[in-house]
């Protein structure tokens, strides 16, 4: 009967393997990136793993803004909790017309400092994959966000495996941001489906803090799950959402979750 490994032993062994690895993968900060919400971090086994790929999907095409916000928030966590301070956003031209370009003022308001962001525009998905691979290998980048057109050729399991390998070498996080809620095969560590939900309106009747309904539909290191969280852009951290009862109940059922869990 197999004995479940003790977490501490496992982590010690991982460190030993990392040190023995001649490619120099033993980067000093390889502990996971904690999101600050206990339930999510627990599901992720301590936080979002660095040196891996993660996929972010919008729940509907109009929710691409929410997915973008979540990806940027993750990148923001990576640049603050990490020795490196820069993030790269790779965008394919087609995506720019389809889903808009990153808007500097909005990004700044979102809590991501503009001088930490590099933006690369490419025309073909093959170029985007090349750029992402090279960027992931670069140790100066904390996060690489890539937006590829969904119908692109060349994006397959092999391509994601190459990216994952590059990410492991570089130690940053790779975020694949998609425009449509259709999962493609990939070997990403986690897969998130993001929708914004109506948050609490502020006392003056305006819109409240940005609130996400977050579905973790694929997690190679633990259980999947579903949470409603807020992003506090002033403090730059996630907090569990404080929702009125009817809104929490109105959160949609996970009918599309099965599809995401199956693919890839």
């Amino acid at each position, binding site marked *: 009967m197999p004995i479940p490994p003790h977490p501490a032993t496992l982590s010690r062994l991982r460190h030993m393997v990392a040190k023995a690895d001649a490619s120099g993968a033993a980067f000093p900060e390889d502990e996971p990136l904690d999101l600050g919400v206990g339930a999510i971090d627990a599901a992720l086994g301590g936080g979002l793993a660095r040196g891996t790929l993660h996929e972010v999907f919008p729940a509907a095409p109009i929710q691409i803004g929410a997915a973008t916000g979540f990806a940027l928030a993750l990148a923001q966590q990576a640049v603050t909790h990490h020795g490196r301070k820069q993030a790269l956003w790779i965008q394919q031209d087609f995506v720019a017309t389809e*889903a808009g*370009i*990153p808007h500097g003022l909005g*990004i700044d308001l979102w809590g991501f400092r503009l001088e930490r*962001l590099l*933006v690369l*525009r490419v025309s073909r998905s093959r170029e985007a994959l090349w*750029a992402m691979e090279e960027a992931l290998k670069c140790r100066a980048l904390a996060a690489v966000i890539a937006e590829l057109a969904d119908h692109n050729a060349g994006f397959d399991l092999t391509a994601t495996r190459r990216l994952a390998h590059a990410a492991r070498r570089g130690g940053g996080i790779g975020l694949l941001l998609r425009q449509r809620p259709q999962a493609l095969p990939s070997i990403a560590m986690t897969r998130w489906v993001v*929708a914004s939900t109506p948050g609490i*309106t502020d006392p003056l009747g305006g819109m409240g803090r940005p609130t996400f309904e977050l579905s973790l539909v694929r997690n190679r290191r633990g259980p999947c799950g579903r949470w409603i969280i807020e992003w506090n852009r002033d403090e730059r951290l996630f907090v569990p959402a404080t929702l009125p009862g009817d809104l929490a109940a109105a959160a949609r059922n996970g009918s599309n979750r099965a599809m995401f869990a199956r693919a890839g």
Partner: protein
Amino acid sequence: MLAPAKSKPRIIVGERGAARRLTAVNDAAARLGLEPDMPLADAQAMYPALERAEADPEQDRFLLEKIADWCDRYTPLIGLHPPDGLILDISGCAHLFGGETALCRDLVGRLEGQGFKVRAAIADTVGCAAGVARFSQTGPEADIVSPGATKAALMPLPLAGLRLSGRVVRALAQVGLKRVADIVDQPRAPLAARFGISLVRRLDQALGDEDEPIAPRRPLPPYVVERRFGDPIALEADILGTIEHLAHELARMMERRGEGARLVQLALFRTDGRVHRIAIGTAAPLRDTQRLRRLFADKLATLGDECDPGFGFDVVRLSVGVTQRCDPVQTGLESINLAGDLAHLIDRLSARFGPQRVMRLIPQDTHIPEFAIVALPAQTLLHQTRSHHAGQEPTFACGPLSGQDSLAPVRPIRLFERPEPVEAVAEVPDGPPVRFRWRHVLHEVMTAEGPERIAMEWWRDEAGQVLTRDYFRVESRQGARVWLYREGLYERETIQPRWFLHGLFA
């Protein structure tokens, strides 16, 4: 020089003033007694069935530029002398080819091999060389004017050899002055008074009494290294190896002067005369040979067939166009040079995709959403504030607002470069929307904030054509937040305002 020798008589015809005249004839036509500047009517009267072609000065100029590019293999300092002349400053270059005679023979031989008819002359002054090359009656061996023999070489030349305008030459001929010898010892003042100052200047320039700078076609790079091959190379690995070798030499030279390269140019001279030029900019002063090789490897990979080696390259030249001070950096054993890594990544991406595509977003002082951010090449921004210390992040002058406060107007995280038309319904013509249809999907509006009224700045809109926009921040029933605007003020600017979706909030 530009007319290739053909056996059939052939003439080139162009407009000269009001008349159509011959601009060039080939050898066969010259033997028939035809010559340039002859009216076409005369030539056709003599030989009605002449083969002729239209002159194309632009193409001639283009060809001359190409030949000048090719001549770059001998010296970087080349001036054009249209329509058909080139001036090469070979000071300090001749010994590389085994002396002036050998250089001259090599150049003429190679150009003739490409089908051009060439006359070359080497002299102390531009004027003398140009005159001798065009008008010398002696054999080719005499076309090298030894130092000090300038005047003697000029004496027998016709006055047209001084690069004078036709009017001046004719005026001189009327008074019986035909050769340089006729005027060289005349007093200058009467000559200048009668025939214009240009005559005296040209004479002085040819004699070397007045300096005549060559306007170089390209700026002279501060560092140039090159390698010549007896057998041309064509394999990419060979080319990259050569680049790395040359980069080593460059790095040594630049290190001595405490400089690093910001712009590196590679010139590949093909054996058939074409020259490929590849320029690579860097974000920070660069001396690292491996990185330089990497950049060119990326660039060559993207160029692909554009950089066709043909039968191979026989000269590879690497030059540094722009340099910047670059002090040696102490690299720690443990700390990784993050700033250097980032600069290298930016260089590689810029080399591969073009500097315009690797951008940083810089806020601008304007309220118009589409102008509020300008994307500038990261390469040009980085070097200004580059820090050598690991972990220390570069900072930029980020325009007027960096770290906006909570009172800043709310802006979406994604913006459409072209606002997307939507169908929207508002309860009152100038009120917020209650529902909108975007890409065939109907969304009910739960909450709307606005309007935020943004009118075009008057200095951007001189004609007053751009309508005022009322922006609404809208939350749908499902929670999606979008930025809509109504174009045109109801009843003041338009009766039927149109709605657009301009951005998406997180």
